[in-house]
């Protein structure tokens, strides 16, 4: 009994130090959660810039948003991001990691930094760079299209079917229906390397590596390797990559702001941009909080299964 008490005290003593070291992190986490709860609470008020006090307004801000064409356009654009950014970036990242895994080892040290380089850039730099590329009248994209690709007879035929000729080049960032894909492409350029890195880490897990090596000794080809060994053992990597990219898609702001400011009109605007505009350009702070809460809720839908899976995996449950 006494011995048990001593052991318990020792265990507590051990944890005491852990708590001391964790305290700063816990402090910041508490602030974060406090601010999150504060934002959610303020979304149920009529808080505007300069208002002396905020009054409870129930679901008014949410009802207001649900009646706005602009809000639904933002939601639609975020969905476009989920579909056209997450899926291609994941697949491309996986494909690159796979190529690197099966390529000659000497090439990898050169290829990896090449694909990772865009990830190291700031989104502002990426945004400016790609907005120059996609400038419909002076950008490199249309220059290459007009001066090189449209000079190739086969490509010219194909592009003509798509309505692209030298006299009718794509409007890119000025096209309300397609500008969003230009931004998505810029984000893909930046994030594919990141996805590749995560997949590469998964490939390097010793168990999977052993399985791959064993299968290769047995004479398995690249496709067989992919189908029977790699894909079944990479589920967790796919989950992590898609979750992280999906979270990014839901809160994307900087690259959109730098490339188009949400324009032309509201064509490329996403929820995070509208949140910024509502709060700081239109002084509607409660409305900004409501949009932030919606983004948070949508993100939570993705985070919860991700965290569940991560905990299960880490603790071997």
């Amino acid at each position, binding site marked *: 009994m006494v011995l048990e008490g001593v052991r318990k005290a020792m265990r507590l003593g051990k944890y005491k130090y852990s708590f001391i070291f964790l305290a700063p992190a816990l402090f910041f986490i508490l602030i974060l959660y406090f601010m999150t709860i504060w934002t959610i609470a303020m979304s149920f008020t009529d808080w505007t810039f300069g208002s002396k006090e905020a009054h409870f307004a129930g679901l008014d801000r949410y009802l207001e948003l649900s009646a706005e064409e602009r809000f639904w356009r933002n939601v639609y654009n975020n969905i476009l991001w989920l579909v056209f950014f997450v899926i291609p970036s994941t697949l491309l990242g996986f494909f690159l990691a796979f190529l690197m895994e099966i390529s000659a080892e000497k090439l990898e040290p050169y290829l990896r930094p090449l694909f990772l380089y865009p990830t190291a850039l700031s989104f502002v730099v990426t945004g400016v760079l790609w907005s120059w590329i996609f400038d419909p*009248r002076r950008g490199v994209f249309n220059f290459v299209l007009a001066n090189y690709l449209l000079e190739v007879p086969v490509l010219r035929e194909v592009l003509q079917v798509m309505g692209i000729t030298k006299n009718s080049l794509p409007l890119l960032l*000025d096209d309300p229906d397609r500008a969003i894909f230009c931004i998505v492409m810029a984000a893909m350029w930046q994030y594919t390397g990141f996805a590749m890195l995560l997949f590469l880490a998964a490939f390097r897990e010793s168990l999977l590596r052993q399985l791959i090596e064993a299968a290769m000794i047995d004479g398995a080809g690249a496709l067989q390797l992919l189908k029977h060994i790699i894909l079944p053992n990479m589920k967790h990597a796919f989950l992590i990559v898609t979750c992280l990219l999906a979270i990014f898609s839901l809160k994307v702001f900087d690259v959109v702001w730098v490339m188009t400011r949400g*324009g*032309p009109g509201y064509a490329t605007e996403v929820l995070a941009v509208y949140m910024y*505009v509502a709060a700081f350009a239109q002084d509607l702070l409660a409305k900004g909080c409501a949009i932030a809460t919606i983004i948070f809720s949508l993100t939570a839908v993705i985070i919860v299964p991700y965290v569940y899976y991560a905990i299960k995996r880490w603790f071997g449950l």
Partner: protein
Amino acid sequence: MFSKKLLGVIVIAIIVLAVGGYYAYQQYFAPKPELIIYHYYTAGGEREAIDVYFKYFKERYPDIVVRENEVPGGAARDIRVVVMSRLEAGNPPDIFLDLAGANLKRYVDAGYLAPVDDVWEETDLIEHVPKLLAKMCYFYGHYYGVPANNVHRENLLFYNKHIFDELGVKPPTTPEELLEVCRIIKEKKPNVYPIVMSTKDYWHVAFFFDPLIYYYGGKTMDERTEYYLNFFTGRVDLTKPEEAEPLRKALEFVKVLIENGYLVPSNAWTWDETCALIAEGKAAMGMYGDWALGYFLARGLKCDVDFHAVPLPGGDYEVYLIGVDAFVMPEGCPHPDVAKLWLKLISEPQIAYEFAIKKGSIAARDDAPAEYPDSIRRENIRFLKEHPELVIPHGTFMLAPPAFLEDFCKAIISFFDHKDVSKAVSDIVALMEKHKVREFSEWFWKE
């Protein structure tokens, strides 16, 4: 004896150390007076202009530490984010820059600004600046903020003079003439964009569209002015066809420009990038405030040789749409005395003049030197003095609530795409209601 000597040495040493320590503390450690300032003058011309103020301030008050915070973003778009956060958090700067008029009022209504009537009195600003400009800083019986010493003209059509000379066309003074000039440019120089506009800087649209509202607002100057002011203060009932007619005409005109490829708005360009197109001869014209002059001059271009600007509408329909930036002092700012030194310094005629020279504008004070090196400003100052009745506020920026600006400009940008006049009118009606334009802008009609 020995102990007395030692005591003396110790006392002297203590005195020397104390004096030296005090000096060192004062020199290196004592809190010095500071000026914490936020502004958005970062583009070509603007940066050089505000450096004039900083130069004089540092010369005159070398002991004051200037903490300068630049927040790039035209039309005060991004500075508000920073300043609003600081104001809401109860941590205001000493001085910040924003647009006067409607923008200033929202800070005043929120109780965030300190009145600076004493600065206006001591510097004789009341006597020496245009009445309208003073009105843009005057709310509820007090002056809040001091104009950043420029009377911007916001309806100038800048054009590449080489292109105009080569084609032998005269700068247009009416929308009809503009259409004709565009037709000639498009016909004779198909690779040159007749008019360029940034839709990425959505507010740039207002510089083109506001003058059109004025032009189509009536048959006489009085009618035009009345319609324009009523429009941007929410007093026009746009649900009535006869009252919406000028707006419809303005939209129809824009539609013609867009459909013919005369007006080239782009989401890939910022306002200064459109200026660059004009400077490089890739575009012929663009509508800006006179602040664009600062950009062209900073690029080393010569007014009357490489580029020029005319008011639009001009000629018999000429109007001066005024835009004013103001430096303001928040209530409870940490160094109010230093802030007032800044406000007084920028109100001095000579300094105001030197600032205006760089900024591309004209100095607000009538006792400031009036010798400007270019014909654009000479013409502006002449018109300002001779026709004060035709000097009216730039509606979207000075009169309507700031929240309306973004939505209004984006409604016009969307119109560039859908080109449905009726839809655009109903969108604007909804925005006027949403942002309570009439209610907010009542201040303008009160003395």
